[in-house]
């Protein structure tokens, strides 16, 4: 379970000016639930995820992950979180197996348990053909799978996935969606940040709509459509953001 309460973050800019990236954001995600964070670029999605991961300290408010407060127990928070960043950040000259071993050790795993978990993830994500090849010439799909496996290595109860299907082909994107659905069935708590509205509509139990660091609306996809008076999520999204004047290119 992830609880976010009045989360606020400022960044210092030049000449002592402050920029508010996240402004009083609150939401809650239960175990076995998928929450989608939606919003245009610069809405504050990545900053919220970094604060939930105890990487950035909130100016106001807090977040609790499986009961651990990000302010007081950052290391315990990271121990129960699996985070997939938007950019995978793989080491070119290391194999997927080595990545998994290294990150498993970072999470305090070792021995047979670690090796067993590595084999399990390699099989589950169908990486057997390239598990022992250096990552430098991997396709986007292959790299995304390695990053996902790295996220899951310590079998975290909570997952933060930043643009998990961005740039993937149909097959790879489908596998990632399946994995998210499976995680949800296993009772894990998942927060996913995405631009793909159709995916959000299909996968997420609830959505949080962000703009300028603030929560504009939150609820189920159907309730958001109803609230906006539109019959699809894209139109509802633009209506709620007040951007219905965006012209369609022809």
């Amino acid at each position, binding site marked *: 379970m992830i609880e976010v309460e009045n989360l606020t973050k400022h960044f210092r800019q030049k000449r002592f000016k402050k920029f508010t990236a996240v402004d009083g954001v609150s939401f809650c995600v239960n175990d076995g639930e998928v929450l989608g964070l939606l919003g245009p670029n610069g809405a504050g999605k990545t900053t919220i995820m970094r604060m939930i991961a105890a990487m*950035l300290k909130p100016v106001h408010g807090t977040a609790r992950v499986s009961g651990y407060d990000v302010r007081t127990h950052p290391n315990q928070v990271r121990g129960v979180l699996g985070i997939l960043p938007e950019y995978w950040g793989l080491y070119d000259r290391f194999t997927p197996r080595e990545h998994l071993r290294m990150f498993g050790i970072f999470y305090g795993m070792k021995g047979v348990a670690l090796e067993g978990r590595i084999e399990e993830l390699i099989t589950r994500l169908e990486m057997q053909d390239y598990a022992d090849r250096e990552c430098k010439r991997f396709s986007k799909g292959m790299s995304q799978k390695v990053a996902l496996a790295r996220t899951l290595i310590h079998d975290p109860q909570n997952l933060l996935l930043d643009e998990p299907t961005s740039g993937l082909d149909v097959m790879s994107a489908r596998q990632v969606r399946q994995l998210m659905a499976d995680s949800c069935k296993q009772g894990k708590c998942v927060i996913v940040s995405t631009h793909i509205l159709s995916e959000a509509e299909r996968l997420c139990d609830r959505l949080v709509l962000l703009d300028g660091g603030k929560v504009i609306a939150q609820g189920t996809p159907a309730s958001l459509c109803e609230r906006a008076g539109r019959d699809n999520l894209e139109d509802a999204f633009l209506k709620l953001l007040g951007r219905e004047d965006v012209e369609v290119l022809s």
Partner: protein
Amino acid sequence: MRVMWVVFSKEFLDIIRDRRRFIMTILLTFVFLPLLIIVPYSYLITRTARQNVDVITIPVQGMDHAPALIDYLVKHDIQVVAVNDVQTLVARKDYPVGLIIPSNYEEKISSGHSAEVVIVTDMRRTMATVFTRVERVLEKYSTELMHTRLQESGIEQDFFTPITVRKQNAATLAETAGSQLGLFIPAFIISFGLTAGMSIAVSSIAGEKKKLTLEPVLFTTISRVQLVLAKLLAVMASVFITLLSIGTSFSIMGLGIVWVVLRYAPLDKVAASVAGNAAQPSDSSPLADGFHFDPLAILLFFLAPCLIILLGAAFQILASTWARNDEEATTYLMPLSLLSGITAMLVFFLDDFTPQLGHYAIPILGTVLSMRDLLSNHIDPATLTVMFGTSALYASLMIALAVWMFHREEVVFRT
């Protein structure tokens, strides 16, 4: 510890697996660089040895004017050929040097006057030592002639040398040896020590920021202190490996030169020639004169630069953390490269400098001074305590600063 070992070994595996770069570094350090030094130096030494002892042939203009001199030259392995124009032959590079004996030579010598002989040489041939050899033989012949003249006149040789000069060293043998070795070795170790780990410091933090590989590591439960210390150890290890490699490379160079010289230079003749000229007292290097190092001094000598290298490594980690990417980190670290160059220059100003205790607290200077002292077998507990104590303090502060910087979110996450 296991986590730190994983981070530490990752940095090295990353370098070793860059096969082209790794193989090139190995070849450059252990093959190309030694060859680049061994080939010209051993050639030069062998050629110089040969030019000094082999039978050489020189053209002589006016050979008939000085039969005794010609006999003397031949007796000293300098063969002569009679020619009419020495200048042209030497200018054409047919011979390295030639001799012109004037027609009035015999007359001047027999009348007790001074006769001028001319050694023609081509100054463009800067590496030729034949000129020196011919000049030396002629000077020796001249001295022998002078002795004969003095004997004939009943004058003692001392009459012409009313004052003899003898050099006496005010420093001990150990101090002299330390001063000679201290001219380059401390500066060499500190210069490389401050810069050799730079590439790993830059790639392990600023480089990782650029490649976006740092953030996933920070998402894990590894502590930032462990991360910084592991990367610091990797930088330190890289410095020591580089110093060891360069030391090995220099040993290969030295052994290579010795092997070539032993194999190709006429050392037996050189030895005989040296024995023949042994009349002059040798003011040779004390290093070759039975000097021995104190084992404790050697141990302290190698320990002395460690803390200053640690200080440099921590500074590199700090700069690499502050930088947005590897290019920026390299720019920030340029002053450190300059500083290491200044260290090399520093030793040239130390001759007239009498250090006080406080000078040993100045970073780098204190280390260089201590290393020079230790090379002279001079173990002073007070100066060593000041140097080690202050270096440890500076290194600790710099490490604390690097760890603090690594905790600053606005620094770690900016790219």
